[in-house]
């Protein structure tokens, strides 16, 4: 295998011909997540014939269309349900789901919850931009308090949904949240998440200057990207400050979004358990047949 070193070689291997450039707006973070996924897949050295992408509806769900591999573009919020079907049909496939925050936590919330609870062996890459970007900027369940959207013109009063915390509580095997402006940690995290048996969730905080930024006085791309740097904090730093910091420091970091790996455990996945169950029942049947004779 030829070792890939530059982005040009990477694009030739992974991008579907004639699809690029994307339809994404200027300054959107979705392309960055796609590139990080490419690097992670490249470093793992997987055969792309065994990798299947599934996606729902939304900006993030257009990503499988740009990848030179099999993909499913499904109904709104049901990408995880379809992915479960693919994995059930052939557990040898590596199934990756690209989904957005509205798609995953808003419309398809229950599919997400039950896939995480059953610990189905898929990787969900959730790109969180705080808004339903493609359909015109409606308020998503993950939008921070006070943010303005077309359906919340006077500011959001609903408390936001913390998807990573939810996945931790449901016992997903791997949960991590990262921004898009620092490349190496997310690529490493993606590699770990893809290799993990069982449910792994990778949440990315991606800027959306057009639908979210413009309404929240962050229309300038540089300002919007800087917002993510100023309003996020590493999980380890947050915990240290909360334990040993002064009151002032605590007040400073209280409302910041935590980044990092939240959960990394090794529970048996759904298909592993299912295989064991089938084998057990087969043994039982053969014993019963033997007793009859």
């Amino acid at each position: 295998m030829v070792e890939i070193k530059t982005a040009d070689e990477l694009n030739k291997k992974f991008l579907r011909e004639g699809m690029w450039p994307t339809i994404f707006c200027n300054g959107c973070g979705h392309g960055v997540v796609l590139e990080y996924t490419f690097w992670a897949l490249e470093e793992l050295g997987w055969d792309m014939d065994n990798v299947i992408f599934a996606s729902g509806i939304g900006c993030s769900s257009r990503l499988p269309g740009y990848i030179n591999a099999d993909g499913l573009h499904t109904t709104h919020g049901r990408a995880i349900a379809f992915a479960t079907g693919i994995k059930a049909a052939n557990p040898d496939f590596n199934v990756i789901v690209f989904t957005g925050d509205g798609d995953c936590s808003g419309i398809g919330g229950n599919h997400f919850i039950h896939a995480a609870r059953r610990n189905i062996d898929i990787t969900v890459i959730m790109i969180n931009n705080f808004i339903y970007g493609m359909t015109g900027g409606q308020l998503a369940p993950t939008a921070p308090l006070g943010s303005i959207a077309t359906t919340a013109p006077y500011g959001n009063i609903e408390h936001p949904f913390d998807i990573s915390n939810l996945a931790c509580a449901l016992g997903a095997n791997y949960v991590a949240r990262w921004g898009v402006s620092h490349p190496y940690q997310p690529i490493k995290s993606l590699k770990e998440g893809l290799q993990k048996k069982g449910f792994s969730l990778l949440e990315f905080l991606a800027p959306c200057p057009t639908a979210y930024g413009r309404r929240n006085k962050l229309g300038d791309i540089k300002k919007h990207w800087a917002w993510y740097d100023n309003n996020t904090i590493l999980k380890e730093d947050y915990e240290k400050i909360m334990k040993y910091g002064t009151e002032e420091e605590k007040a400073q970091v209280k409302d910041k979004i935590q980044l990092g790996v939240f959960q990394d455990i090794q529970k048996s996945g759904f298909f592993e358990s299912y295989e064991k169950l089938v084998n057990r029942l087969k043994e039982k049947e053969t014993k019963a047949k033997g007793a009859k004779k």
Partner: protein
Amino acid sequence: MIEFKDDWCKGCNICIDRCPVNALEESDRLNKKGVRPPQLKKDNKCNYCRLCELICPDLAITVIPEEIKKEDKKTLLSPIGGKTK
């Protein structure tokens, strides 16, 4: 050397903003979309960290590290034991 795919660039200028050594600038040429893609400054300060390549949302940048040729050190000390001409 840094290669820019001009027609893929949308002109977000994230690469210029995020470059740690401030080696990039907007160019004078216009691309198909009517934006000005970035270019290397004349005095090449690039240290080939590849941040712009990884962070570009449109995968338009490729960084090709130049092999830095080290000049042979010229010393006055000649190897001992060699034949002198």
